[in-house]
């Protein structure tokens, strides 16, 4: 958790000044009972009205200085707390985006969202209150104790006994609370997950009239959250009443000993009043402290989770370009295997092939045969667990990751766009692309037509591209990749939502690209990859065939089966 301190950078002055100004205010407050004691012992006892006026005047003066100092402190702490939390949120956001897939998949989207929103909010709240009160409250407690000692140390011994007891009570309840509130938060994550599920799957839920089951599942999680929440807050609610009882017992002791002390002439009536006032002050301040600690407990639990997320490993890669061999194949797999963290067996085993510049590799295989897994290894979405993946002759792990990805363009299976404009989405491929470059890419992806029809490059894209149809989204994601003019173009089943006519146009355009990228095409349709220099046939993670269409047709059973299943024995369309 201590690693979060650095986020106070830029707000250090405020973060230090705020509590110290609160300290000053507290100091002024500690003087007040002394003035009243003087009024009782001197003013009233000696009947001096002007003395009463003087003391009251001083009290008002102290109060005025106090309020000015306090408001300044509030400003500083607001600034520091919000600044701090924004800096944390920013880093957390950055970290979230650079988490390796294996990590972020384990955490899940809902958890990541909670970390970035609700958790940071609570942390901000905790810091704000903490800056204002964390120094002030203990200072008043100990200050009042010292003042009491100065009055009469024997009576003040009561304070010495009471404060540790209070501290223990506070400590125990808080330690108890931390895991309890973490449990409450975990249940809230479950609720978030359910709500997301319902928003994402609304069509299916309604089609299957599954509304009631969804409601039941949510209700169950909701009940559990409530139960945990009530229990956890019930425990933390013990703090106030318990401290209250202890302080009052101390006051009773104080009255008893104080009466005896006045009787023996050690202290005056005014002194007794002052000591009593200090005890009340301690009570008020301790209750504040207890509440503060409850808030801080919750924030600490959030800080803990945030800091855990912040210390997850990020994708790492060297800064320097690796030594490149001239004439090396653009892409080469050497006995490459991959196993998912949670899986028992390899999802891809012992795959080897090499792809030269300007060539095309087709990948064909059944559902779950490892096609997408293979693709994920190239831009290092995952790292091979055995064997090597070479790009331009160098292991992908030796490439600076950004540079590697800059030279590769992937069109993923799911066509995901981001809110903004079409042009902004296209510039994901290449930040400084000109309108002409974008239009050329859109044209090649057969997307220029509908984009211009809707109003050109600056038409808005809603979140998830929801204002475009599935096929349009897919063509836009193809264009986004083409804007990049990559050395290696990877199409992961990217034509699935296109009709044949469009599919044909897009593929003809891609084949005619003047910069001749090496191309990897994953497809369900043998027609899309028949012309490839090589076709890799995958079956349950194993490479069962590699070669041209003609060769595979002759000697690969799986390929033949897939091919004929779609086109019939004579290579004609199956009627």
């Amino acid at each position, binding site marked *: 958790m201590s690693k979060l301190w650095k986020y106070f950078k830029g707000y250090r002055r405020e973060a230090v000044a705020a509590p110290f100004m609160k300290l000053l205010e507290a100091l002024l407050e500690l003087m007040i009972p002394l003035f009243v004691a003087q009024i009782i012992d001197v003013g009233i006892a000696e009947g001096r009205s002007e003395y*009463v006026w003087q003391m009251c005047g001083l009290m008002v003066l102290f109060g005025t200085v106090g309020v000015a100092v306090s408001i300044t402190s509030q400003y500083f702490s607001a600034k520091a707390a919000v600044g701090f939390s924004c800096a944390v949120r920013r880093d957390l956001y950055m970290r979230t985006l650079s988490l390796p897939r294996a990590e972020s998949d384990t955490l899940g989207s809902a958890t990541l969202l909670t970390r970035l929103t609700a958790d940071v909010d609570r942390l901000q709240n905790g810091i704000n209150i903490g800056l204002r009160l964390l120094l002030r409250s203990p200072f008043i407690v100990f200050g009042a104790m010292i003042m009491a000692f100065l009055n009469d140390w024997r009576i003040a011994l009561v304070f010495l006994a009471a404060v540790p007891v209070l501290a223990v009570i506070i400590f125990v309840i808080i330690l108890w609370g931390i895991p309890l509130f973490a449990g409450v938060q975990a249940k809230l994550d479950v609720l978030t997950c359910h*709500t997301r599920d319902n928003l994402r799957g609304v069509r299916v839920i309604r089609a299957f009239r599954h509304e009631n089951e969804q409601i039941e599942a949510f209700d169950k999680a909701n009940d559990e959250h409530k139960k945990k929440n009530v229990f956890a807050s019930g425990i933390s609610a013990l703090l106030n009443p318990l401290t209250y009882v202890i302080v009052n017992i101390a006051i009773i002791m104080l009255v008893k000993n104080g009466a005896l002390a006045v009787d023996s002439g050690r202290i005056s009536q005014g002194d007794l009043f002052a000591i*009593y006032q200090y005890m009340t002050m301690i009570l*008020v301040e301790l209750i504040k402290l207890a509440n503060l600690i409850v808030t801080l407990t919750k924030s600490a639990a959030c800080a803990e989770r945030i800091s855990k997320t912040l210390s997850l490993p990020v994708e790492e890669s060297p800064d320097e370009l690796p030594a490149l061999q001239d004439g090396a194949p653009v892409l080469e797999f050497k006995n490459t295997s991959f196993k998912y963290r949670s899986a028992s067996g390899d999802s891809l085993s012992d795959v080897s092939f090499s792809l030269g510049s300007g060539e095309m590799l087709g990948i064909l295989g059944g559902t779950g045969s490892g096609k997408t897994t293979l693709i994920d290894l190239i831009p290092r979405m995952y790292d091979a667990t055995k064997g090597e993946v070479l790009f331009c002759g160098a292991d992908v792990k030796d490439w600076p990751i950004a540079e590697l990805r800059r030279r590769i363009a992937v069109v993923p299976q799911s066509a995901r766009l981001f809110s903004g404009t079409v042009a902004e989405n296209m510039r994901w491929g290449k930040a400084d692309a000109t309108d002409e470059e974008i239009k050329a890419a859109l044209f090649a992806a057969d997307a220029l037509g509908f984009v211009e029809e809707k109003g050109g490059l600056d038409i808005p894209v809603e979140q998830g591209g929801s204002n475009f149809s599935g096929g349009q989204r897919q063509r836009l994601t193809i264009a986004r990749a083409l804007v990049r003019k990559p050395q290696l173009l990877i199409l992961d089943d990217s034509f699935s*939502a296109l009709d044949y006519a469009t599919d044909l146009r897009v593929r003809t355009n891609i084949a005619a690209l003047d910069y001749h990228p090496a191309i990897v095409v994953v497809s369900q349709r043998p027609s899309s990859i028949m012309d490839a220099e090589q076709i890799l046939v995958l079956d349950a993670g194993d490479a069962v065939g590699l070669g041209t269409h003609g060769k595979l047709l002759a000697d690969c059973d799986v390929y033949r089966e897939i091919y004929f299943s779609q*086109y019939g024995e004579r290579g004609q369309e199956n009627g």
Partner: protein
Amino acid sequence: MAKKKSILTPEQRRATTHRLLRFAKPYIAFFIIAFIFAAASSVMAHLIPMLVGDAIDLAIGEGKVDIEAVFSLLPIMLALAVGGALLDWLVRLVGQRISASITHNIRAACIRKIQKLPLSYLDSHKSGDILSRVIADTDRLSEGLMTGIIDLYSSVIGIIVTLVFMIFINPVVAIVVGVLTPMSMLVAAFIANRTFSLFGKKSAIAAKQTAVIDEAIGGREVISLFSHEGDSLVAFDEINEEYRKTATRAVFYSSITNPATRYVNSLVYGGVALAGGLLSIASGGAISAGEISCLLTYSQNYAKPFNELSSVLAELQSSLASAMRVFEFLDAKEEETTAEISISPDSVKGELKARDVAFSYTDEAFMENIDFEASSGQRIAIVGPTGCGKTTLINLLMRFYDTTGGSICVDGKDISKISRGELRACFGMVLQDTWLSSGSVRENIAMGKPDATDEEIVAAAKAAHAHKFITRLPQGYDTLLGEDGSVLSAGQIQLLCIARVMLALPPMLILDEATSSIDTRTEIKIQDAFAEMMQGRTSFIVAHRLNTIKNADKILVMRDGKIVEQGRHDELMAKNGFYASLYGAQFKMIN
């Protein structure tokens, strides 16, 4: 939109409070119990300073202390302290239960609301924004309620009890305190008024930021593929900075309340000391030192609730802004329920007629003059270029959206008069946009038929060619699927979606690109199962691969939101029109 509404008019504020009270109504008994306990606890707590004052008065000076009298006060004080604390704890417990229950109920209302909202609402609102209302805003509301109930109660009661006790000791000083202290309320109200709109603004920006974060988390794969982390951060920074500025101001202004009211109180404290001191001197001891001590303690106690009241109000303000956002969601217009005509999946024959159907997402007409008929058991294929309205037509059949003109009838009954649930029960659907619920594989397949036996589930999975890969999963049919089914590939998810329909088998089917992510080898096998499934069921098939629909009884060829041709494959080919050209393009690809 949220920006405009973040500044609340008094009516809106009242309306929000009113709504909140409605949620509080079932807990009225708890409120009363909490009130009685809080009152008792408060009286006990305030008796203690009075007894201490008595003790101080008994301790006048050296050798003049009535020790016995002082000691007799002590057990009473102890009893009061313990009793007051116990009651205080109970008040807190009750308060927390009320706030947790209300939040619980509001969330339950939210999830029910989601089921009742029209798709047009859900499609046009960012899910991150709705999420933030259902989760984060209710959370803020819950905290506001908790402090609201507990502190509001103890504050109001504390004020009354102290005032009564003060009048009992010295009416003059009591009036000074009673009149001056409420000034702090005015100060607090002034500040609260200013901060409320700021908090609304803060909430609105926070929601926008959540939407940005949500999008980035959902698209993190694409972001890393395009090394777009940096640019994505720039967009985030912009809104983060906006949030920082607004939040700093909102947090600061709201935190002025405390010192400002404390200042008013210290003035009152000084006033009591002055008045008490001068009165005592003037009257020659008519008011004792113990009474002054007691009055000073009370004036602090009297002020404390006012202070708390103001911070409670500030907290309530911010949670009221959150509450309003939640209620805004809960008040969104629901789908009108229609149930004039009843229909049952068991007796539906599956005749479907569309007459002059029109539809638009916006003011501009998108779909017009849609006319077609499907007799019972027919296979109807819908083809056309992307964006021509195929999916929209499906949306209309399932009543995800309602037609804006014309009518669609099932067995001669206008579907706009049938309840949506009953209508949808007659359709089995596999969509291009697949979705699995979090839960086990088994639960997902059984979605359409909750009472299915294990044998039926396995049979459906086998028919969908999903059985084999399911058994290879770590826990087979009991494997839990994470969010978005993340352990499965897109094709596997689609197979599960197909198994789901295979199990339910309603009288009509809709297959919208049902096999787009499945390889052709598996698809061929599934086609057989589909063919069997479609036997005797009216089916609507949207597909790009035209060879899969050549056997359809009728092909609807769509273009730009209209049906341009319809008929059997051979008829359409003979016509040599738009369909023939689409088909030709596909055929050309194979050569």
